[in-house]
């Protein structure tokens, strides 16, 4: 008893409404994607400048300002992920020199075995194979428990835990003693939060070993070059 014309009219109405709704959705998507893209474009230079300033600040924490006289930002090389350093992506390695003579290498490393995953580190290692300083750049360790690896969170303000690595190398702490005390090594850890300290300690030991092994080649590379572990001399 239905009217075929009526069905057809209703179907075309449904189609029209669907198309209209889809078009509205599309319009909203385009407008708001444009809003995001525009904001991104507008803020990108400022965001990049802040990121650079943040990097310089971090480098300043591990490398005293007067100890070098070259422009670190231009005397840098690209570093593909190194097994010993634990990074996932390409990073930069900065070479500090004074009067043209090599002073120290500054680079990022990571410990992947923190209590809550990755702990990002930045280290400065001098030509004598000593770790000038070590800082945590990012971590997700338990607040109030494992986060003392970050000196800002360390309750010991006069001598934060992380400063015990300063000026040490394998000449003063042998490679097999470069561990936390709980593992029979040299470095302190907080009771109840060994995992965070162990991760940072072991990662710093690996970074030191890596720097000692590759130092000469790293300093010899041209500025803005790229370190290729396999391509170089043995």
């Amino acid at each position, binding site marked *: 008893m239905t009217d075929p014309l009526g069905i057809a009219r209703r179907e075309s109405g449904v189609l029209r409404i669907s198309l209209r*709704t889809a078009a509205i*959705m599309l319009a909203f*998507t385009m407008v*708001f994607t444009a*809003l995001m893209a525009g904001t991104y474009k*507008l803020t990108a230079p400022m965001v990049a400048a802040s990121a650079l300033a943040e990097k310089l600040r971090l480098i300043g924490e591990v490398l005293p300002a007067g100890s070098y006289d070259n422009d670190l930002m231009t005397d840098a090389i690209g570093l593909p992920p190194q097994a010993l350093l634990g990074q996932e992506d390409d990073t930069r390695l900065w070479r500090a020199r004074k009067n043209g003579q090599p002073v120290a290498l500054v680079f990022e490393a990571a410990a992947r075995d923190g209590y809550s995953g990755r702990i990002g580190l930045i280290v400065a290692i001098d030509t004598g194979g000593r770790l000038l300083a070590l800082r945590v750049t990012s971590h997700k360790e338990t607040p*109030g428990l494992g986060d003392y690896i970050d000196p800002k969170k360390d309750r010991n303000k006069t001598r934060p835990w992380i400063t015990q690595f300063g000026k040490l190398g394998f000449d003063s702490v042998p490679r097999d003693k470069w561990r936390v005390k709980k593992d029979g090594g040299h470095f302190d850890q907080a009771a109840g939060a060994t995992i965070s300290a162990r991760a940072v300690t072991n990662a710093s030991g690996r970074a030191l070993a890596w720097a000692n092994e590759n130092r000469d080649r790293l300093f010899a590379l041209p500025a803005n070059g790229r370190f290729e572990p396999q391509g170089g001399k043995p």
Partner: protein
Amino acid sequence: MSAYKDIAWNGIWKQNTILAQLLGLCPLLAVSTTFVNAVSLGLATIVVMMLANFAISALRALIPYEIRIPVFVLIIAALVTVVDLAFNAFLHDLYLVLGIFIPLIVTNCIVLARVEAFAAKNGLRAATVDGLMMGVGFVWVIGLLGAVREFIGQGTIFSGVEMIFPTLSGIQVLPADYPGFLIAILPPGAFFVLGLLIAGRNWIEARANQRMLEKRLHEHPPTASAAGA
């Protein structure tokens, strides 16, 4: 004017997003480890809620009913991205502290809930005030939760405030050799403290209801026939 008073009362107490509606627990439980963290997330949430309520109230005539939820999600996500980028560019120091929390706001269903329940049906000013007041309700509860957890967990209050105001520093309330009470810092502690806060709210509400009932009974004592009914 009393409409705005209602909005404020709803946001801060009666329909409080956490204590009454139990919404947005994911960021709430994750971030309330210290007072400063908690309030930082809360303030960023206020900004996003006001913007989202304003934008959707302004656009509500253009949004077809059938696709309102995807459009709301789109608008909220876009606004959070814009706020995130703007903070990063213009307020970089604050961004270093709040930055990790801002993307978390997308996961906070309070924003979507207020947009759907209020902003889509009300005018610009009422919607913006609602966003503000719901945000204020969120801030005071998450701040209290953070303060209690921080105090029990590590014996301090306001720790980390130097990240926002470098001249200030946290206060060690309990003795410095307080060993800490780890469970308060870990997620289960958040549930315990939140449970106590909700119980406290229910107790206050129940007492208020009881008083109102007694007052009404006093004013209109039940007649014999009514009592028998």
